[in-house]
């Protein structure tokens, strides 16, 4: 029984008014399917090819998944970003295409919203600043209206 029937938001139940966001045409991965990819990313990182591991992580992130799956993926990306040295960052950024940089900025923002990412705030801020210096504020503007969220 609703106690406060005067404050029911009637518009929310109106069938014509329901806001339907556009469907996202991205494949849904499960955590098991992502495990081999995350292992591969870690493997490439330990072998020293930081650029390749970052490229693989940027390749097709799980946009349409559960938040828990996305979090695991983001933690994997955080490992990669943490392990690339400060001096190498500029080199890596020069070799990424603009689309890849958009996804990189998306990773940085999503990581800063997580507790684990906030712990390595300095590293993430370093990545963010060097990228924006190189490329401009375009990726930020594109992030604001991006329907594919991590």
């Amino acid at each position, binding site marked *: 029984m609703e106690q406060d029937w005067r404050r029911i938001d009637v518009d929310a139940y109106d069938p014509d008014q329901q806001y339907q966001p556009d469907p996202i045409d991205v494949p849904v991965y499960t955590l098991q399917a992502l495990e081999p990819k995350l292992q591969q990313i870690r493997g490439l990182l330990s072998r020293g090819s930081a650029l390749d591991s970052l490229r693989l992580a940027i390749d097709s992130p799980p946009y349409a998944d559960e938040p828990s799956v996305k979090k695991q993926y983001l933690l994997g990306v955080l490992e990669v970003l943490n392990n690339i040295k400060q001096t190498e960052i500029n080199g890596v950024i020069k070799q990424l295409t603009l689309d890849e940089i958009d996804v990189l900025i998306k990773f940085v923002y999503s990581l*800063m919203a997580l507790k684990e990412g*906030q712990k390595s*705030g*300095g590293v*993430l*801020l370093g990545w963010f*600043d060097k990228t924006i210096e190189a490329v401009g504020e375009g990726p930020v503007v594109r992030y604001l209206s991006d329907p594919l969220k991590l």
Partner: protein
Amino acid sequence: MSQSLKPYLTAVRHSLNASLNLSNFSSQIVERHNYPEIESKKTKEVLLNPITIARNENEKILIEPSINSVRISIKIKQSDEIETILVDKFTGFLTKRAENFLILRRVPVEGYDISFLLTNYHNEVMMKNKLVDFIIEFMEDVDKEISEMKLFLNARARFVAEAYLSVFD
């Protein structure tokens, strides 16, 4: 520690520059009304993705943009109880005079210490780069002010304690 301050502030500056592109948007729900969409949140299409920028777990900024308004919430560093009380009093002092501030929100967003609400009308009256400069300066100065207040508080407390307890010596 202050090594990460400059990247933090430039990150906030870039994000604010990108989010402060505001244009007038009349309410689609009520005729002749004009709401800051980030506050009313009735029209989902005009809300943009929120941005969190964190220097560490205790200092972060949440920028919630929309088509005609941006809400900026700041969490100020509070390392002990005294600083918590000082920040509380300081932000309370500012928010009680929010009308004079124009862009200040009277109540901070849940989880943060102080919030600003910038609308397209503010953008028309004030220059965008100056608004961004103001927010960045505010962030820098608030930290300095809180440490200054804490130092003065400790100095005063020591003086008072000496004066009072010297009688019993």
